[in-house]
């Protein structure tokens, strides 16, 4: 196939802003849906909760599926943030210093203790990487299938012009 050389017209420009908006919209939803199904960002199921934590969840009449969710505060704080200076999309916990109320489980309910959880960025890091006692449950990032889905979205969007 011969190479066509255009000598007139304008050079197509990559619409980074549009691409960033698509990524910012897609990634948090993908993480939320996959984590809700108990699947890690490696594509493997999450390590099960410990016996003692499962017992606590049962005592609090909570769903015992491994979805990294108790109050929902951490998962609700996952967002895509576009940095306009370098045109990057950071998927982060926003506000990263935000905290959730600490709750104790028992008698079929979750009761606020009055204390706060660690900041979501710290809690998220521990959940993702583990902390020695707790196994890693990587949830940030995308699986190969999710990357494919995102690539499909980006391809179908008109990003050049």
């Amino acid at each position: 196939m011969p190479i066509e050389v255009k000598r007139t017209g304008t050079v197509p420009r990559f619409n980074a802003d549009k691409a960033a908006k698509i990524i910012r919209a897609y990634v948090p939803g993908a993480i939320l849906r996959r984590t809700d199904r108990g699947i890690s960002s490696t594509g493997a199921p999450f390590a099960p909760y410990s016996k003692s934590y499962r017992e606590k969840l049962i005592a609090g009449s909570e769903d015992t599926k491994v979805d990294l969710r108790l109050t929902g505060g951490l998962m609700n704080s996952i967002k895509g943030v576009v940095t306009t200076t370098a045109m990057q999309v950071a998927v982060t916990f926003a506000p990263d210093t935000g905290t959730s109320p600490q709750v104790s489980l028992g008698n079929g309910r979750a009761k606020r203790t009055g204390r706060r959880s660690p900041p979501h960025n710290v809690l998220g890091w521990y959940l993702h990487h583990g902390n020695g006692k707790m196994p890693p449950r990587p949830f940030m990032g995308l699986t190969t299938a999710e990357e494919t889905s995102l690539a499909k979205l980006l391809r179908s969007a008109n990003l050049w012009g």
Partner: protein
Amino acid sequence: MSGAAAAGVVADGAIEDLRRLEIAVERDLFRFMLRLDTEAGEDALIKRQTQTQAFVLRQVQRRLEEAGEAVRSAAGARAVEAVEAVLGAPPSTLPLDVRTELDALVNGQMADVAAVFKAGAFEMRAAVAEGVLSGGSLADAVERVQGELRTTYRRAQAAVDAAIMAVGRRTVIAAAKDSGIPDLVYVYVGPKDVKNRPFCSQWVGKAVIDPENLDNGQGLPADDFCGGYNCRHSWAPAPIDDVVADGIPIYRSSGARYIVEV
């Protein structure tokens, strides 16, 4: 000053006021005892005691009105500090897009937070008035007021927590709507257990194309608050093809199944 410390100042100020009041009441009762006519009959004693209690109660109410006003005027500042306690940082340090959303929602929520403090002031007054009227010790009433202050601050924080959660959902949905991705739907994700509200039981595991039009029966926007205050669920935006591939049913807010031609 942290939110917890700020709450402590409110509590300490109000409690200090009540402690002074308690001392004044004891002094009044002591004076009453000194003037006590031991020859007087029981009816006269009861009458005198009732008069003293009524006097003390008026004093209590006057001072609590002042304390209540102070608590109310501080409510706005306390509400901001309650926000900081939840955020772990002043709102001004947040990224601009998050801050904009936060401002919009928290400003609306501030009225609720202030109302919580105002209701707390009434509760405190009621606690002391009841303590005095029932002849119980004012020290007990002070204990009860301390409890009310703690509860009030927790209620205020709960309102802020709900606002922050709502901001989180709103930011994700707004980013989805702003993306230009055609045919996005919103999957209702989160726990499925006996604690689910009827709204959550109905929608968990399903997708909807227009969450903003759903009614959660709580008088709160379902796209921001899902099932209501302290709801543990989230809306996860997703391309319709992915949701169909996952076998998740998709609905319109009217409840009619949204049939997708594959």
